[in-house]
């Protein structure tokens, strides 16, 4: 009887260990994905624009957690650095500076709403069909996505395998996308750049290379006449 009891408890222990691991994985996955979905909804649902940006940040963070969970730790970290650390900061910066809340209230109140609904509907249907096509293709022809190539070897780290693909097979695509970004950046700067006249600027070289003879002049001042200084 006693040995049976021990066997039973050992079995329970084994079961709990395996279930624990599975449950832990599931718990983490569902926590992050629920946070991601809810915050994505809240981005559009919340009336305060700054709150929307904060929800967007929460969304980015939970998605990068999901990336880390599937073993793509490099992508997850880059997501954090680029999107949360830089892009969202600029978003927040702009949203805080602009008085968007007022404009938004006007949209909700006036007839302007009707103008935006069809555009939003068209874009969202387009995105919906794109997702359908991607998932459908994945479901029926898994070989076109070539998952085996990217995730098969676990001996090489994530970063290494990404670099090996990115800088060999796809080097031209990679360089061209970088060039497009550069052109976009230069274009944005050129479009917004205004040369204002009459702005005082500090020239460091001019300051450092100033000599005493240029800056100081000793004058003999006669009483009751003064000196004329041309500025």
């Amino acid at each position, binding site marked *: 009887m006693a040995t049976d009891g021990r066997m039973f408890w050992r079995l329970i222990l084994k079961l*709990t260990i395996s279930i624990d691991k599975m449950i832990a994985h599931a718990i983490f996955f569902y926590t992050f994905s629920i946070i991601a979905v809810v915050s994505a909804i809240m981005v559009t649902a919340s009336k305060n624009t700054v709150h929307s940006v904060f929800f967007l940040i929460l969304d980015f963070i939970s998605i990068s957690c999901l990336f880390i969970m599937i073993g793509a730790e490099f992508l997850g970290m880059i997501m954090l650095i680029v999107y949360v650390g830089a892009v969202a900061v600029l978003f927040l910066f702009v949203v805080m500076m602009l008085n968007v809340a007022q404009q938004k209230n006007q949209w909700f109140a006036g007839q302007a709403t009707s103008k935006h609904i069809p555009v939003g509907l068209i874009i969202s249907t387009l995105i919906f069909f794109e997702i359908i096509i991607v998932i459908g293709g994945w479901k029926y022809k898994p070989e076109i996505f070539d998952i085996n190539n990217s995730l098969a070897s676990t001996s090489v780290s994530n970063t290494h395998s990404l670099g090996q693909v990115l800088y060999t097979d796809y080097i031209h695509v990679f360089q061209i996308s970088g060039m497009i970004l550069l052109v976009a950046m230069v274009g944005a700067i050129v479009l917004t750049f205004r040369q204002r006249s009459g702005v005082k600027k500090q020239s460091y070289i001019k300051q450092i290379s100033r000599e005493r003879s240029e800056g100081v002049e000793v004058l003999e001042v006669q009483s009751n006449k003064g000196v004329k200084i041309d500025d």
Partner: protein
Amino acid sequence: MEYLSIVFQEVYKILFLLVPVLVSVAMIVWLDRRVWAFVQKRQGPNVVGPFGLLQSLADALKYIFKEIIIPSSSNKVIFILAPIVTMTLALIAWAVIPFSATQVLADINVGILYLFAVSSLGVYGIIMGGWASNSKYPFLGAIRSAAQMVSYEVSIGVIIINVLLCVGSLNLNDIVIAQQNMWFVIPLFPMFVIFFISALAETNRPPFDLPEAEAELVAGYQTEYSGMMYAMFWLGEYANILLMCAMGAILFLGGWMSPIDVYPFILVPGAIWLILKILLLFILFALVKAIVPRYRYDQLMRLGWKVFLPLSLIWVVLTASYLFYFNLLPVN
């Protein structure tokens, strides 16, 4: 059940790391004030405890018993979240700092990226605090810090690329081990200087403390905070400074490695060496605070974008070509 015991072990390890970090943050505040005072021929805090060592404890006690005031027109949730975010982000980054080859909480593949990501998230605590206060001075401070921290992050990122070119791995332990023959501070000395100055700007230390410039902005983003919430901002800030020092020690000063590979020095545990290096960098931080006047805002932006970024980018090209020409690129 076994899973739970693993979880408890991890919690125990985390506590074993976090409690010393928090205590050393309190001590480092004392050290900062002390160094600052000595440079100005003052005594600094020397009344509470031996050499004034318990000053931070007394301050903390004072903060705890002060009333927390939440402005009525503030955005309350974000106002309360802001110091918590600052504090949490400053502490979670310590998870990847290696204290020796084995003493590390999470020895992850992308350790340096994690450190960089967490330090770049630090700006949110400040922006949230400044915006949620719904008041002019905090908002100006927050806007300034957002621009400042984003600018200097860029040059820190490029400097990290410099180091990574010499290492060939993103793991922090690999970075330390790669410096076995020579610390990176010797071949990459200009990068070390730029990293140090960028770290000053990234942690809002003088001479780049524009977000909380007391002469113009009262206390910047912290103006509306009081009591324990203010103390949390303060602790988070110093924990971030310590973290930046640790990052500098790992990237350039050989982390937990002993400076010379001879008999009596090897016996000293790695954690002690790391702490000594962090302290060295921190004393430099404190000295800079005492001797350098505050930068003007346009000068700050010019330094970040027009001096540091091009310099570090050129250095990336130089390092890469040197390593490539002499066939020294780390391949594994």
